[in-house]
């Protein structure tokens, strides 16, 4: 028994030492990792709408309508003039060919697409995976939500060769998300100046 206790103590000692080391490393790296994450999100948004500051808005969706019960989008205001709304940033997500495709999209106050950026995906390399490229984003620039359909579905988004499903996932996810936040933005349009005032 004593022998096993001794073994337990030795193992425990190793664990304690290891935990201590890890705690230290964590204390050093964690702030940096968090910072990196924040900066990355900021940078991504800044790339979509330059020279702007972002504030987040949470919409609570009616219960049972969809799995996440809330949705976040960002209002981009000009750095120089915080009352001037440049546009909105939203993130949309839908299952594509072999993975969930997560996209960030920027729309202007007319709900016209400024730019998009696919943030996360694991689609087929060489086909669907090309949705991360800038040339893919080009296909979306300047489109109104009504036209946001893959060409094969009757819209104006040109599908990537051999990757219609991925294109469709990105397109539809953005269109559907715009539809959700549109109401919120439209109701806000009247109230925002008052808030600022």
């Amino acid at each position, binding site marked *: 028994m004593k022998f096993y206790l001794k073994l337990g103590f030795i193992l425990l000692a190793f*664990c304690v030492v*290891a*935990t201590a080391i*890890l*705690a230290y*490393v*964590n204390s050093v790296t*964690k702030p940096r990792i968090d910072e990196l994450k924040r900066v990355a999100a900021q940078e991504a948004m800044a790339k979509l709408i330059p020279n702007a500051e972002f504030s987040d808005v949470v919409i609570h969706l009616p219960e049972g309508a969809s*799995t*996440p019960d809330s949705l976040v989008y960002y209002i981009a205001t000009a750095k120089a003039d915080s009352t001037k709304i440049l546009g909105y940033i939203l993130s949309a*997500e839908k*299952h594509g*060919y*072999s*993975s*969930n495709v*997560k996209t960030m999209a920027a729309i202007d106050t007319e709900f016209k697409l400024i730019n998009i950026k696919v943030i*996360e995906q694991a689609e*087929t390399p060489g086909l669907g995976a090309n949705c991360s490229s800038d040339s893919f984003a080009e296909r979306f620039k300047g489109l109104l939500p009504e036209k946001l359909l893959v060409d094969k579905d009757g819209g104006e988004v040109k599908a990537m060769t051999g990757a219609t*499903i991925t294109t469709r996932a990105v397109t539809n996810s953005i269109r559907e998300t715009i539809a959700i936040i549109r109401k919120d933005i439209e109701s806000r349009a009247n109230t925002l100046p008052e808030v600022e005032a």
Partner: protein
Amino acid sequence: MGFFGQLFVMAVSAIFIQNFVLAKFLGLCPYLGVSKKLDSAFGMGMAVIFVMTVASAFTFLIDKYLLVANGLEYLRTLAFILTIAALVQFVEMVIQKNAPALYKSLGVYLPLITTNCAVLGVAILNVTPLPDGSTYNFLWATLNGFLSGVGFTFVLLAMAGIRERLELVDMPKSMRGFASGLILAGTMALAFYGFMGLKI
């Protein structure tokens, strides 16, 4: 979608679409190493299913109530591997004591499972947020462990079947062993490609 609907989706995904071995590259060492004979592949498969299920349950609880609750996520790797090692040891002892016949057929594979990355892999994946931001609860994490184990066993058995057949024929010398095992794995991965993009 009801419980069984979700279960079906998860099963199809774990076995065919996102198979641990063929799509995620996890558990390759036993897949290539213990697939020479069907009997031993079956033993290994059963042992893996068992350990993956139990390990999923344990690590999930440890993660939720010990690590996340105290902000200790950085200890995950350490905690999980220790849990798995201890679990395997424990399972080995229990089986040895209570079911000697089972131990005889499974015993040799149990120690190998500690270093089977499929087990640690499923434990980590269970606590990683899913693409849509949600996470599994305890029940689904355990089921995921079980079904992933089934997926692993499924391809392990298929592989063993083919290799047992190839044992009898005259293969080029340089292709024997791991080389042909890998080519077979590639062939199987290609054969499973048809399930990619399956919408269920």
